[in-house]
């Protein structure tokens, strides 16, 4: 003898076809006797009829946008198994060669500066590598082959010579001899054959694709994944020094040390701007960073509810003085707490003071790791790195 809850599944399944004759009979018998289930069946049928009508045409440019990215990015799909890329991104980078990277930087840099453009394939990188190497500064996770906006730490001194990833030239403060740093800015608008929106979009897509170019669940748009642990474990500690030949690095060092607000700007550009395009930049003695969301009601339709705000603010320097540590925080208040604000620190981020290297992100979601140990290791790695 079933109760009504058992019949829900039959009612639902019947909408999709596939009840046996016996099930059909049993259901009908129950419905005849139960007005509550009858009403429910009617409602469900109405939903079943209306929902397909929600289908819409995709935007007309959807396919073309993807094709444009494909054409601009690489001539062919990733040549090597994606697992290898996922698990050992640094090996892939190294295999390509520090020499080649430096060479590419040197070759491309001057030309890029002068022409204000960049041929992405000129770097001679394997398919899919060139754009990451040459174009992108915002998606600083590239050497490790992972998705922005949460770049993963990439140990290896190879990483350092692409100051590509470190420097966002500020107005008036460009680092002229730091050619790679110029490339992304100048490349975007004048990419041969591309247009600005496509070019600027591209790096973002590249990195996500790089991390997610496989059948199984992608690493996600924020790049948080087991890759962090996988890529990190066993690697040498990250070195902050650059491998560029002296004439490249000297001007870089001199001009590249960031102020706190410059670091905050970089952080915002790379990590938060996409989600919070209208954040407020704040430079005060007691708060340096960005207010991503000022205090606001969470639920508009129920004012006696909750308020929250989000921001990212400077917390201090790492012990070694090489990283500015920022914290993404959330504030919360509700009527019951008499609007007393509470603050949670959601995650810490480290921005290299030198301007060279990736932004480091504190691992947050343990579900994305294979084990508690892997998660703990990743957390330790983060703190070791930023305190170096």
């Amino acid at each position: 003898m079933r109760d009504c809850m058992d019949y829900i599944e039959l009612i639902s399944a019947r909408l999709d076809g596939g009840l046996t004759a016996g099930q059909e009979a049993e259901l009908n018998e129950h419905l005849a006797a139960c007005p509550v289930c009858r009403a429910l069946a009617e409602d469900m049928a109405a939903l079943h009829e209306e929902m397909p009508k929600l289908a819409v045409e995709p935007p007309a440019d959807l396919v073309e946008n993807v094709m444009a990215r494909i054409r601009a990015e690489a001539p062919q799909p990733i040549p090597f198994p994606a697992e290898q890329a996922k698990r050992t991104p640094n090996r892939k980078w190294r295999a390509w060669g520090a020499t080649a990277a430096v060479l590419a930087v040197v070759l491309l840099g001057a030309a890029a500066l002068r022409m204000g453009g960049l041929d992405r394939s000129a770097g001679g990188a394997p398919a899919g590598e060139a754009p990451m190497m040459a174009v992108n500064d915002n998606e600083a996770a590239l050497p490790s082959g992972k998705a922005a906006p949460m770049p993963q730490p990439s140990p290896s001194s190879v990483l350092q010579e692409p100051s590509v990833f470190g420097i966002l030239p500020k107005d008036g403060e460009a680092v002229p001899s730091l050619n790679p740093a110029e490339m992304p800015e100048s490349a975007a608008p004048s990419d041969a054959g591309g247009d600005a929106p496509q070019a600027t979009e591209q790096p973002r897509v590249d990195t996500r694709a790089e991390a997610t170019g496989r059948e199984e669940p992608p690493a996600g748009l924020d790049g948080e994944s087991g890759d962090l642990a996988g890529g990190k474990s066993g690697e040498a500690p990250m070195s902050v020094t650059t491998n560029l030949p002296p004439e490249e690095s000297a001007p870089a060092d001199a001009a590249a040390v960031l102020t706190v607000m410059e670091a905050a700007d970089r952080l915002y550009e790379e990590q938060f701007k996409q989600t919070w395009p209208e954040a407020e930049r704040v430079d005060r003695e007691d708060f340096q960073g960005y207010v991503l969301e000022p205090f606001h009601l969470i639920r508009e339709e129920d004012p006696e509810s909750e308020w929250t705000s989000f921001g990212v603010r400077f917390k201090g320097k790492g012990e070694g003085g090489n990283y500015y540590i920022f914290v993404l925080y959330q504030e919360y208040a509700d009527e019951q707490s008499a609007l007393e604000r509470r603050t949670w620190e959601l995650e810490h981020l480290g921005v290299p003071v030198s301007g060279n290297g990736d932004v480091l992100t504190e691992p947050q979601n343990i579900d994305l790791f294979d084990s508690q140990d892997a998660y703990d290791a990743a957390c330790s790695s983060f703190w070791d790195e930023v305190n170096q």
Partner: protein
Amino acid sequence: MDDEKSLIARAQKGDQEAFAALMEANQGRIYNLTLRMTGNPEDAAELSQEAFFNAWRGISKFQGDSSFATWLYRLASNACIDFLRKEKRRKNISMTVSLDDEEKERQAELPDTRCSPEQEVERKELRAAIEEGLQALSEEHRQVLVMREISGLSYAEIGAVLHLEEGTVKSRIARARLALRKFLVSSGNFSDSASSIT
């Protein structure tokens, strides 16, 4: 589908036009999935493009043991879930539901007393209410409902995308429909004579 097979084979060798044809054939279902999962066209377009781009990058990995559409769905659907998780974490500490947690979903639904038909709550068109209701569901429920009702996937196909048994799919869809219906009762679109069941 020989035609699809040959397109896939060509795409795997780098034939971009073949891949474009595959996209044309699948863009409707992928876009509708991302649209109903995210609730807004901008994110939907972005995520659809992401999914397709990932498909291109990873197409050499496609074995053919599932259908191409299933594989694409999985890419798109996972991208949506990751995106929503991230958005949720960043934007909302009192977000309605988390994945796999029906209990929270029930708690998060609009209480009947607030929006019962007797009060001056605006009666919405049913379809608009359904759209809203979809957003209020857990991602898990939204996912199966969108795949079933909008993309028209069978239980077996949904099971293939999500790596679930058909029986699980069937019961999840039933619970999703129930949850959606409950939202519509709360919002005043359905009468609540059947609410004693839930």
